[in-house]
């Protein structure tokens, strides 16, 4: 194939769009994280996120998260059209600051969990989940 002016332009436009799409999703995820942490520094100790390495069906991906002593844990899927997944708030009778649920993932992406500790600090864990069939029904 000869590289004509038209082809070059199309390629350039295509790659620009391709570069923009994940950036927009990532920006939304960062906004969701900032809304939860208020821009505070985020550590990495004391939180466990369990998710399958490969999920065949993105419609129902089992995950569990545990952060001993946490007040609240937010789960974010950065590659989804809407990054928010769930926020667990633990009351005085929660025996363990842990929970399991099933979530939808649009495609292969990192799932992030951030816990807020009673002293106002934040810790984060993330896992990459490879999704064979996306769960957005698009």
């Amino acid at each position, binding site marked *: 194939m000869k590289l004509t002016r038209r082809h070059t332009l199309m390629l350039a436009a295509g790659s620009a769009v391709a570069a923009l799409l994940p950036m927009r999703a990532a920006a939304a995820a960062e906004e969701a994280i900032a809304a939860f942490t208020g821009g505070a520094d985020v550590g990495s100790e004391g939180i466990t996120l369990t998710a399958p390495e490969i999920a065949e069906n993105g419609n129902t991906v089992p995950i569990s998260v545990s952060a001993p002593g946490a007040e609240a844990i937010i789960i974010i899927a950065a590659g989804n059209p809407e990054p928010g*997944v769930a926020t667990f708030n633990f009351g*005085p009778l*929660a025996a363990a600051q842990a929970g399991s649920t099933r979530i939808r993932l649009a495609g292969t992406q990192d799932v992030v969990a951030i816990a807020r500790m009673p002293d106002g600090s934040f810790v984060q864990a993330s896992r990459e989940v490879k999704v064979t069939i996306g769960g957005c029904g698009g």
Partner: protein
Amino acid sequence: MAENVKPRVRVPREVAAGETITIKTLISHKMESGQRKDGDGNVIPRSIINRFTCTFNGETVIDVQMEPAISTNPFFEFDAAVPESGTFEFTWYDDDGDVYTETKEIAVS
């Protein structure tokens, strides 16, 4: 659209004093995400359960805020402390204003 919504909760009937229990909850709900389109290309409006809470004798165990990324038939598993005999109350809040509740008694032996 609150049809065939049926909460299912598993709580042990008895617990030894000082022990904690694991609670599993499931509620049948289609959790329409607002991202899908029907055959004519129209977006199907969002219709989800947006909040789930569990309390024991009025005190909070867990309070979950849910987004459309939670799967159909939302499932939650968590641990609870049982300081005395009493009642667990589970509540789900639907986008359309409906509230679904389920209660389970537990005795401390």
